């Protein structure tokens, strides 16, 4: 299976990169920021008001030297672990990750987001991409290095994962923390269906991630995701997704991995008490079909179920069940369960404790207590949804 050559895709990518600029060259296009800024105050000629216009009120003047600086934030993720684990598990104490975010609008057509991570003395670009936000046709195009759109957990940065660790299926079949994150181009589009939010996302990656290893330049990796979301009421909603991924896995010159996924989330949050209570139930199921040069095709299946309840403004509890075969040896199946309690001193810090029981495919078990302290400084980020 080789639907496109690398050259074709690079050309498609170049077209997408050009689209916003081409669109802007078109006469009669939507107003841009420059036009707006002056039109609102100078060039627009609203009719003479019948009432006396109000006197201009005082306004805050931002410090001029900082006005074009990107929004800067830093998030610390400090982990602790006790208990015996056959594989060693997490270190006893660790600054698991420090993430620095730099985010700003590039120009009237695009914005850029960089997330640099510092973990175990290694600096990495977790994400660094430009998003073209003003494209016509309901398109949103991103280019750069980014997390993949497969399922739910893959797209999450560590600090929004609701547990101290990722589910076993994420580690066994989806590459763990970095998942399929890679350099590439992402195109997503809203599909108009009355009463339902439907979004289709297609991503083309270089093929150099935790799961995919492209032997040649033309061996790209592909991720597709279809999301359906519907409000059941003002307080509850359901979120469904289907995902596919394909790419070379590096086992041999022409061995590939195919991934298929399904995810479902139900949320309940009463609006009048939205800051005190919510309920979330989520499951993700993943099938992996991995070819290898030195053995049979491995068909592995895994999934997790997670339920979360917010008890009060600052206290959250969660339960997770894990069950997953391993991508490289589907005869081994790891299972586990976790109980999680999270306390928020404020919106900008959280303390978490997790009891984790794991039964490894080799027959050994682990009972561990994990502790996490997360703290955030700088620009106020978006609340996770």
């Amino acid at each position, binding site marked *: 299976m080789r639907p496109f050559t690398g050259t074709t895709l690079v050309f498609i990518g170049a077209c997408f990169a050009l689209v916003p600029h081409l669109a802007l060259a078109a006469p009669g296009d939507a107003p841009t920021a420059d036009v707006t800024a002056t039109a609102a105050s100078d060039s627009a000629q609203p009719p003479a008001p019948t*009432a006396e216009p109000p006197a201009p009120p005082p306004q805050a003047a931002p410090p001029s030297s900082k006005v074009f600086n990107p929004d800067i934030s830093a998030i610390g993720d400090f982990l602790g672990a006790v208990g015996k684990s056959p594989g060693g598990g997490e270190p006893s104490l660790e600054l698991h990750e420090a993430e620095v975010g730099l985010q700003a609008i590039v120009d009237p057509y695009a914005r850029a987001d960089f997330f640099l991570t510092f973990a175990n003395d290694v600096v990495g670009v977790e994400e660094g991409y430009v998003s073209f936000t003003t494209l016509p046709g309901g398109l949103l195009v991103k280019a750069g290095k980014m997390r993949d759109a497969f399922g739910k957990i893959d797209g999450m940065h560590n600090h929004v994962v609701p547990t101290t660790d990722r589910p076993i299926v994420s580690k066994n079949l989806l590459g763990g923390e970095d998942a399929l994150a890679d350099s590439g181009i992402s195109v997503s589009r809203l599909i108009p269906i009355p009463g339902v939010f439907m979004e289709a996302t297609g991503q083309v990656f270089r093929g150099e991630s935790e799961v995919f290893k492209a032997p040649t330049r033309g061996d790209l990796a592909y991720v597709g995701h279809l999301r359906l979301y519907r409000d059941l009421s003002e307080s509850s*909603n359901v979120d469904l997704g289907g995902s596919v991924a394909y790419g070379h896995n590096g086992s041999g010159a022409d061995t590939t991995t195919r991934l298929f996924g399904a995810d479902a989330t139900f949320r309940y949050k009463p609006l009048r008490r939205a800051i005190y209570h919510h309920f979330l139930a989520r499951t993700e199921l993943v099938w992996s079909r991995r070819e290898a040069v030195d053995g049979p095709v491995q068909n592995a299946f895994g999934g997790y179920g997670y339920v979360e309840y917010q008890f009060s403004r600052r206290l959250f509890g969660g339960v997770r069940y894990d069950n997953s075969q391993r991508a490289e040896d589907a005869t081994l199946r790891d299972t586990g369960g976790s109980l999680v309690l999270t306390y928020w001193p404020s919106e900008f810090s959280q303390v978490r404790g997790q009891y984790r029981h794991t039964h490894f495919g080799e027959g050994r078990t682990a009972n561990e207590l994990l502790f996490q302290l997360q703290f955030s400084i700088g620009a*106020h980020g978006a609340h996770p*949804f």
Partner: protein
Amino acid sequence: MRRLMSLPCTLVALLAAGAARPANAAVNVVASTEDLAALTREVGGDKVKVEAIGRGYQDPHFVEAKPSFILKLHAADLLVLVGRELEIGWLPPLIQQSRNAKVQVSAAGYLDASLTARILEIPTGEITRAMGDVHPLGNPHYWLDPENGRHVAKAIEQRLAQLDPADAAYFSARYADFDTRLAQAEKRWDALMAPYKGLKIVTYHNSWPNFAEHFGLKVVGYVEPRPGIPPSPGHTIDLIQEMKRDNVKILLVEPYFDLKTPNSVSRETGAKVLVMSPSVGGVPEVTDYIKLFDYDLNMLISAIKQTGAK
């Protein structure tokens, strides 16, 4: 190559043309809160179609960025937002994913209503989050001063006239009518509140500085020890002592906060807990901007009379 490049050009031109608003169609407005939606309806009348994202009984800091809101923004000609970082936790991702050039930051369809409002509590010295979830650009609850409602309505009128010049005279007339009705209502409200100038009150969150300033009230304390930080026992004890010392008999609570601490403060101090509506839609009978103040002031004045607060 030129032929190849002309294909995307044509597609883009076709898609852009398809996205344009047909003549005589109502301007599709999405407002971040019901207050801004109500002010848009006052000015826009039947020439606009208005939807609000946050509900009036919902904490506007913590609206969720639901994908269904992306659909609303996708179809919008104009987004009116409160600004001053009130919506910073949820509106930016909705705008970014809206795939709508019209409502991107600084586009013609992006109206930050705070830019023409009188903003209080703009920090002048150093601020840190040790002060809680402070708003570095000033207090965003400015719509609770009717003067600011007037400023915002004017800004909406001007922006609607820019987006729909054919109906500019209509918007202008609607604004003038609203301005007159608001002025009459303000005279009534000011007369009602005149006997209570300088009345000391306590509020749950710092949502009421503009309201207090306009109607001559003095906010002497908050149930939250810092903005966004839930009540602590130590702070609550201090607050009770302060309320007893200052003989504070009115405690205003927004409808989205828990009443446990306010009720215990009330038991200790004899103050009346008033769940007032900080927004249009906070209670079913508050269906427009003028009714918001009618409702709140009636409730406040009857509580003042009931408690004998001075």
